[in-house]
């Protein structure tokens, strides 16, 4: 226990020792704090429309001004962080779960199934992300579900491949054959032999995918294909700003800045994590 603690502390120190890692942690923590304590920090209700306060300049009352419906932008930006964060966490977790299952099926299943899955992964990857998103929105209609499905489709092939490779490597190793013949279930093989070997790279990849997920959510919401109004999302705020860009450019700035800072924060953190824990993954990004 003590050893694990000091390992964690050491790792944390190493991340902070990298200037970018430190910056990444600060940005990510700020973003998470803003999202979690949005109600406390913002004061104003992100949904409250007040037609008299349309397009107000930034002031002490409205730190980032107001939008075309007179809603407080600062509050909307903080609440938008909630959407971004929850989509990122939920869809990444879902992608990991599905990726692990499909990777195991590809690795342990019969050869033909493996081939089909690999072909399917390649085919999914051969759709440009936005085209995939647009096609899926025709199927589901604009919604948070559509965003999550897109993210899962985009991420699953990568995770499944890692699990598959590891599974295939283990399958040829004798000790798994021995374990299996002794009646160990797939779950046990997974827990004992496969996950310990891949959990590190998998989590690092997932952490590096988070900015991509946030970008997908914001992008789809920007196009009006993701989160439905009036729910505050950074993409939607950016779109409001885009519509009013000639007269009130700060709305676009307010919508874009959190996207920039968050994606930078998670990327710097993810890169540092990778360099500190698993330099082998270098070059994959």
């Amino acid at each position, binding site marked *: 226990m003590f050893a694990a603690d000091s390992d964690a502390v050491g790792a944390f120190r190493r991340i902070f020792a990298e200037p970018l890692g430190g910056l990444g942690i600060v940005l990510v923590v700020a973003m998470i704090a803003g999202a979690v304590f949005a109600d406390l920090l913002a004061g104003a209700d992100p949904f409250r429309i007040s037609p008299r306060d349309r397009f107000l300049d930034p002031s002490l009352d409205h730190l980032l001004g107001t939008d075309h419906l007179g809603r407080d932008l600062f509050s909307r930006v903080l609440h938008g962080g909630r959407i971004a964060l929850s989509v990122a966490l939920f869809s990444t977790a879902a992608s990991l779960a599905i990726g692990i299952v499909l990777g195991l099926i590809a690795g342990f299943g019969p050869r033909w199934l493996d081939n089909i899955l690999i072909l399917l992964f390649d*085919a999914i990857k051969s759709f440009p992300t936005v085209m995939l998103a647009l096609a899926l929105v025709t199927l589901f209609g604009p919604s948070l579900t559509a965003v999550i499905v897109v993210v899962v489709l985009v991420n699953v092939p990568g995770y499944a491949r890692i699990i598959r490779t590891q599974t295939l490597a283990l399958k040829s190793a004798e000790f798994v054959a021995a374990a299996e013949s002794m009646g160990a279930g797939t779950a046990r093989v997974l827990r004992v032999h496969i996950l310990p070997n891949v959990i590190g790279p998998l989590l690092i990849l997932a952490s590096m995918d988070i900015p991509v997920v946030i970008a997908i959510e914001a992008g789809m919401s920007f196009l009006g294909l993701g989160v439905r109004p009036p729910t505050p999302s950074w993409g939607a705020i950016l779109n409001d700003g885009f519509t009013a860009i000639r007269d009130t450019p700060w709305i676009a700035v307010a919508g874009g800045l959190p996207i920039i800072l968050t994606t930078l924060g998670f990327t710097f953190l993810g890169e540092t994590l990778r360099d500190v824990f698993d330099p082998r993954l270098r070059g994959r990004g």
Partner: protein
Amino acid sequence: MLNYAVKRLGLSVVIVSVAMLLLFSMIYLIPGDPAAVALGPRATEAMREALRIKMGLDKPVWIQFWNFFASAWQGDLGREVLSDRPVAQVVLEQLPYTLALIASGIIWSVAIGIPLGCWAAVRRSSFADRLVGVLSVAVIAVPSFVIAIYALLIFAVTLRWLPAIGAGEPGDPGSQIVHLILPSLAVGLGWVGYIARMVRASMLESLEASHIRTARAFGLPDRQITYQYALKIAILPTVTLLGVGIGQMLSSAVFAEIVFARPGVGKLVYDAILTRNYPLVTGAVLVTTVLFVLINLLADLIVGALDPRVRSGF
């Protein structure tokens, strides 16, 4: 080389076919009756029935799929709902705009990214190298549509240096190029980072190779060693990367076309979704997918042509 090309082409055909299957299952799964959607609420049941038969929706699934599959391979993507024009024609009209946008994005990324990566590799571990590294990561991380909007805000709205919307006057290349600058920057900027990183890493690797030591031992000038002997090897993974990258650039192009109100396939699909013009959506998605697969194929063939080891090893 021919053998390699044929194998690679076969793989592409399979991938496109699987993509078609996915796309078809998607259309098939769309809730609601396409005929009803197409004709709107005021159509009579008889009109819907007639359209259904015309679209082949009364036949069993597998025949529908076969028809879709066979006609798609022949270039027939059906007719779009609103104007009843062939989907393929509508998409092909818009394609050149998107291709021009992506090509200019590639020009940005290659013209800046390759020299930047080389420059950083030669100055390994210096401050300049670190700065290039951080900037590369930063431009990769920031989503292209945010770059597009900020570029619009800064260069078109605030500074008024460049035009904000449209693709320029038809028949006036000067105006068309000026209208390309901002959208293509938004499309290509992230790839400046990717390419700079990739070139830097592979340059460092190829500068370590023993044939580089041989070249030095023969007194070849450093410039020739760096920019000819090492770069030609370092560029190979970059070409493959670009092949994959064009898919992402297609994504960025959709946003750029919407933000800068440019004609193009991205704008076409977007508008088609808003008007529920499903044949147009599937047609355009299919065309871009084929395009993407073709470009990947092309990238692999270029690598094959540049690297004699690949074509004989395959």
